[in-house]
């Protein structure tokens, strides 16, 4: 493959050319209710050639590997139509590296299909059998194994293998018109052991969905909120991580002013880090999809903006260090600036102490999603409890929090000592990327909680 790629590069006339090829095999096993809903297998190969001419990009995506050289040529031609300024890409040391996936556990490619089906079915049955109010379930097992070949015109050549395995277990409880849905999941770049031994988690999803049926929706208003580590990690990712992605900023002079390094965004207790090098996490990579090594980057240090996530272009244009955050979903996508493992550094406050002094607040737990639009962000807890006079009281549902970048981090009142990680997928620009988020418990005042009064 290497020779073919090196040969194809010769067809490129541009300031910079790269090619990424992939082979992928994937299996999906999905249950809906009692029955299996989807059982499918897929196999794909394809690639993308990307070229830069005078600062403009041309790209060509293909499935048929016979089109490889032609794709390089087309990408260069298109780039020629676009470019109008000087090329600028941050310098990076060329690397030559061939890595193989090290699956310490069981390689899921060797697990027979019936075992994958049985595993998913067991959890699905646990949820279905938990309570008569469990109306239905969705259990989705998915694995994929990708081989990736990357080459660029500066002498970098990387071969990589990327295993991915996950299971999502969703219990849906119903009582009359009320429907509640709770999902538990396990997800990693590891082997089949990731999805084994999750019986208790399945039980928990079912139990929680039934409990939520009798929980009232939270009353909308402005509260002091304690976020559990899972939700707080999403908060860091949504509220701050996305604004730290330099592709938002690098060609927008006003945003650059607004997000200038050195500006204070939060209280001193808050430091937020992106680190693609932590072993075993879901956002961990050795190199990004431009061949740049991953590293640890402080975004917010003691409340002050000190760093940003970059690809080679944004790094050069902003004159800031490379961070190794250019990531692509797959062969049909170009790399864009993405987070890896993003977390709030733990502080010193114990959880018990965090609750004290809250007259009326919300303890928001777990997360079902989050979204950012520039300064505004919204994130949804799986459920919550009301806090009254420092004590955790009744269960509430539909806890959706919204905030503003310029205010919320300044309203953080306490950062806990109990860092915990969580793993998932982040969507941006039509692509998803595996990421981890981490945080201790945190307490924030003046948070708008949506809901009905």
């Amino acid at each position, binding site marked *: 493959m290497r020779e073919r790629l090196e040969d194809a590069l010769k067809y490129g006339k541009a300031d910079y050319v790269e090619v990424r090829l992939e082979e992928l095999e994937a299996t999906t*096993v999905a249950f809906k209710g009692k*029955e299996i*809903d989807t*059982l*499918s*297998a897929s*196999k*794909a*190969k394809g690639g993308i050639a990307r070229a830069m001419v005078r600062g403009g*990009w*041309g*790209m*060509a*995506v*293909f*499935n*048929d*590997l016979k089109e490889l050289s032609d794709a390089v040529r*087309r990408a260069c031609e*298109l*780039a020629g*139509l*676009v470019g*109008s300024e000087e090329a600028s890409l941050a310098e990076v040391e060329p690397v030559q590296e061939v890595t193989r996936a090290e699956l310490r556990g069981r390689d899921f490619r060797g697990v027979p*299909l019936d075992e994958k089906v049985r595993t998913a079915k067991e959890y699905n049955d646990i949820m279905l059998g938990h309570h008569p109010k469990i*109306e239905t379930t969705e259990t989705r097992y998915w694995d994929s194994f990708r081989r990736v070949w990357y080459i660029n015109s500066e002498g970098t050549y990387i071969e990589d293998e990327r295993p991915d395995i996950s299971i999502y277990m969703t219990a849906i409880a*119903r009582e009359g018109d*009320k*429907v509640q*849905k709770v999902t538990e999941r396990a997800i990693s770049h590891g082997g089949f052991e990731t999805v084994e031994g999750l019986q208790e988690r399945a039980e928990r999803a079912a139990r929680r969905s039934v409990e939520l049926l009798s929980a009232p*929706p939270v009353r*909308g*208003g*402005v509260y002091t909120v304690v976020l559990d580590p899972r939700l707080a990690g999403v908060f860091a990712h949504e509220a701050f991580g996305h604004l730290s992605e330099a592709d938002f900023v690098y*060609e*927008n002079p*006003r*945003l650059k*002013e*607004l997000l200038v390094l050195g500006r204070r965004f939060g209280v001193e207790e808050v430091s937020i880090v992106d680190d693609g090098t932590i072993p075993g996490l879901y956002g961990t990579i050795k190199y990004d999809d431009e061949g740049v090594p991953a590293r640890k980057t402080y975004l917010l240090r003691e409340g002050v903006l000190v760093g940003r996530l970059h690809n080679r272009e944004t790094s050069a244009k902003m004159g800031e260090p490379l961070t190794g955050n250019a990531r692509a979903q797959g062969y049909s996508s170009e790399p864009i600036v993405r987070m890896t493992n993003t977390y709030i550094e733990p502080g010193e406050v114990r959880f018990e102490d965090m609750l004290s002094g809250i007259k009326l607040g919300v303890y928001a737990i777990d997360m079902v*999603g989050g979204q*950012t*639009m*520039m*300064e*505004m962000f*919204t*994130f*949804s807890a799986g459920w919550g409890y009301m806090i009254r006079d420092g004590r955790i009281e009744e269960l509430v549902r539909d806890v*959706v929090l*919204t*905030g*503003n970048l*310029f205010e919320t981090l300044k309203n953080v009142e306490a950062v806990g000592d109990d860092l915990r990680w969580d793993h998932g997928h982040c969507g941006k620009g039509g692509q998803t990327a595996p990421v981890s988020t981490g945080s201790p418990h945190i307490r924030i005042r003046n948070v*708008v*909680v*949506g*809901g*009905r*009064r």
Partner: protein
Amino acid sequence: MKLRDIAHMVLEKVSSKVQSAQVVASWEESTPVSFEADKLKAIKTSRTVSIGLKVIVEGRLGESHVTDPEDVDALVEKALEATKFGREVNYTFPKEEPPDVKLYDGAVVEVPTERLVESCREMLELVKDYNPDITVYAYASKGVGESHVANTSGLDFGDEGTGYYLGVHGELVREGDILMAGYGRGWRRAEIDPSEVAGRAIEKFRMAERVVEVRSGRMPVLFTPEGLEVLLLSLKLGLNGKNVLLGSSPLSGKLGERIADPRFSLTDSGVEDYRPSSGHYDADGVPKGRTVLVEEGVLRNFLYDLDTATKAGRRPTGNTACSPNNWLISAGNTPNDEILRDLREGVVVYDVLGLGQGNPISGEFSVNLALGYKVEDGEVVGRVKNTMLAGNVYEALMRISAVGSSPEWTTGSLCAPPVLVDGLYVVSKEGT
């Protein structure tokens, strides 16, 4: 190799081993052009191939996909293996005549890449003329594709389609305030007027020149066609025949009952000429058509794919995975601008954050107004920020108090007029 030949080759390999089988071979070519931060940034071409196979053996379904015609043996083998554990089904892939619907516009294929670039530039300049401080992003894309579906019942149908899209959005940054707004249009014909797309985007910026506060409380909310997604997301899940069969839809068992104000009627259609979600067949080879879902507030039908329809004892509606094709909300009897004019105090919704994060199937929603405006005495007075909108879709549908008389197509697969809902909950930080 021609798609038809690939499809036939696959069928030949499996037909003796299965009760029923269907193969779809397709290719697609697209050319997206993007302007970022006021300048041309990238042009991409993409040529992708897909071959999908569904087989039924001993009443069980297996599926597989590959991208390389040379992998058809793996395609067949994996699909057959999957049938050992696959979903139990009780149908064979059908052979029915295709409906009459236009999907292909030769003019799209003729559009040179330069015209895509020019259209972007035109939109960009119009937005800049309105306000040079807005940082502009513009997109244009054209696409063409062919597919061939063949099954063991004798369906043997080649199809071709095109797609065309223009969109523009801008960012306006002021101290402590970032506004993002835009507009896009997409369908299967090459005719989209860049100045109209830009005009729509500019209108949103114009209305947002002032940021105003809104009080917390219950008030009427006007959903623009774009903003209607807030209500339609839950309905998509609720009208999904599979969710109905499994009992997870709150609409289960409510056929013939009133679920909305009589002013509200909703139809699913896969046969609107040149619309994105139109087609001749769904993924199981069932012809697409029109299905009345809600008629003058009364629930009339759900969306069914072949398998779910068989199990529910209903007719399949040509909806892959029981998901919508295009949705049409019928015109009401209030002129669009009159709805706004008669509003003493309320909120207009264009775009929200956080939709679908909570528990959308229940109908509960609680979303952040990404782009919304306050109305006072019949006029938009400015943009509202840091404001949440909450309620239940099924209650909201009953409280519809006006439906506009002029529906229009949004960016994607919805044709709708503006819809006014009384008494939704608005929660704002400033206004408590």
